[in-house]
């Protein structure tokens, strides 16, 4: 088939019928381990000389379908599925960073990522420098010789912000380092960062890829385009590896090098493997990604319109709105769509925000996004509560902020629930 389109790839990529049984839907390979043909075969697998399965911490045929599916939708060369979005971040950085290294991270990130970078990564002596992405030049100014990557979100959580991927990719490449884009909120249906110069794309597959709020998972996609051997910045990829008899990943695996190193070093040693059952749930979710994203965006735009005109609402941040400050960037990167997630300011601040989340009936008050169900949260008292007020405001999660993840229910019902909850708050 020549050039199948997105919707076709979302259903088929990676998932030809099972060669042995003919099963049409991807089977769940619920096995911890796999037999070797003989002792030489075992040695070749352990040495990465053969492609094959050893143990489900490293590879699993169900997970392999998810990996190829997402690599294809993102236009990457390889993918690695892991236990969560946070595991994806940890493993991607494990492949890039040495103790003492630094990286630049946008201030407009999911609060948990800011905490992971600023607290837990410190224990590995990986040091994040936070940069306001509103002006891409801020990244250029913040670069240091020890910087090994720039990390941004395409559509940023908690909402409304679109990051200028192409401009920041250029700054990263001038500095000889890769751009990592967390594409969780946009999903590859709305934005494919690799087309704009990103080198590595990460997902919390828990969100729109899986799409039904039923499985935690993460994925790392590599474009295969970055030249890891052009400098001495990335010894894990360019230098002989002692745990593989001095093999050099980039020389041996070419465009597959980053993906294989993430698996054969990071996942092997740190261990956050994805269960094949969760991989199956996420694969099934991806089959309807295009339908769901369309419905999420249509509903969210109606909700944003409604909120903009509501007496209890002081502001709405949603890049899908034509008069939004980020709409022109959205036109460039997401075809003008704003995704499912938005924030708004509730009149009455912190206390009104808490009342609002307690007064909803259709919306679920919980810490997640990217579900078929509409979700609501007050970030300052939950996801972003580890941050101080200054960091909260910098992350777009100040005391009056409410975050919504609009589901695929009927828009009238969604709006009616918000209206009654606002009027009581």
């Amino acid at each position: 088939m020549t050039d199948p389109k997105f919707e076709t790839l979302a259903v088929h990529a990676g998932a030809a019928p099972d060669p042995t049984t003919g099963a049409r839907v991807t089977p769940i390979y619920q096995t911890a381990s796999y037999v070797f043909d003989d002792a030489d075969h075992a040695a070749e697998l352990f040495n990465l000389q053969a492609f094959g399965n050893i143990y489900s911490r490293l590879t699993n045929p169900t997970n392999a379908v998810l990996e190829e599916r997402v690599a294809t939708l993102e236009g990457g060369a390889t993918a690695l599925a892991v236990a969560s979005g946070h595991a994806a971040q940890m493993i991607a950085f494990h492949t890039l960073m040495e103790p003492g290294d630094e990286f630049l991270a946008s201030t407009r990130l999911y609060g948990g990522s800011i905490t992971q970078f600023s607290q837990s990564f410190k224990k590995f002596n990986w040091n994040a420098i936070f940069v306001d992405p509103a002006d891409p030049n801020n990244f250029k100014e913040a670069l240091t010789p020890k910087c090994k990557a720039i990390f941004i979100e395409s559509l940023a959580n908690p909402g409304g912000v679109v990051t200028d991927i192409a401009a920041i990719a250029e700054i990263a490449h001038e500095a000889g380092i890769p751009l990592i884009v967390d594409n969780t909120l946009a999903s590859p249906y709305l934005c494919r960062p690799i087309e704009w110069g990103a080198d590595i794309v990460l997902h919390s597959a828990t969100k729109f890829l899986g799409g039904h709020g039923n499985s935690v998972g993460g994925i790392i996609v590599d474009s295969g385009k970055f030249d890891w051997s052009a400098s001495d910045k990335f010894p894990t990829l360019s230098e002989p590896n002692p745990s593989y008899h001095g093999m050099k990943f980039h020389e041996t695996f070419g465009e597959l090098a980053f993906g294989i190193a993430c698996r054969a070093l990071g996942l092997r040693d740190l261990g956050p493997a994805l269960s094949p059952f969760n991989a199956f749930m996420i694969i099934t979710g991806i089959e309807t990604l295009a339908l769901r994203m369309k419905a999420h965006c249509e509903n969210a735009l109606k909700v944003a319109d409604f909120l903009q005109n509501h007496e209890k609402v002081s502001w709405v941040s949603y890049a899908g709105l034509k008069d939004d400050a980020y709409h022109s960037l959205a036109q460039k990167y997401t075809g003008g769509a704003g995704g499912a997630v938005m924030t708004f300011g509730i009149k009455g601040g912190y206390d009104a925000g808490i009342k609002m989340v307690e007064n909803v009936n259709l919306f679920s008050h919980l810490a997640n996004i990217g579900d078929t169900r509409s979700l609501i949260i007050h970030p300052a008292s939950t996801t972003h509560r580890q941050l101080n007020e200054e960091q909260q405001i910098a992350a777009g999660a100040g005391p009056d902020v409410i975050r919504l993840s609009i589901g695929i229910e009927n828009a009238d019902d969604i709006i009616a629930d918000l209206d009654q909850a606002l009027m009581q708050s």
Partner: protein
Amino acid sequence: MDHSSYTDEYLTNILEEVKTIAVVGASDNPSRPSNFVMRYMKRKGYRILPVNPGKAGQEFLGETFYASLSDIDVPVDMVDCFRNSEAVASIVPEAVAINAKVLWMQLGVFNETAAETAESAGLKVVMNRCPKIEFGRLSGEIAYMGGRSKIISSKRNKLLGKR
């Protein structure tokens, strides 16, 4: 022919027709890429004939290192070049002389002139590719390691015959 890309059919035909592969620039060091490729292709059923003058006569993977292509005393279907791009020019006349059917240049190895010479002598040519990666891709096996088979099909995956 244009060597910037190859159809799956072109590469599949090569990998299905070929039975013996002479590997020029073969290394017995287990961490070198040529070593990875030889072990993998041998397990897939190909006979691997390592060529390296510095190692001539030594045993490797059940075969003996040859000093040159012309020393090989069995029919060679494919010559796989683990040498720099310039060195391929001197490999072509030998590959033609031993009636090889395919000249394959590894990832990072390009030589348009050598390719033209080989093609005009009737050889099929592949450059800047790895037979291990292509076999893994076309058989779907590469997906186990996160690579892309790029197969979209409602038919059972026809693993290449050699397993």
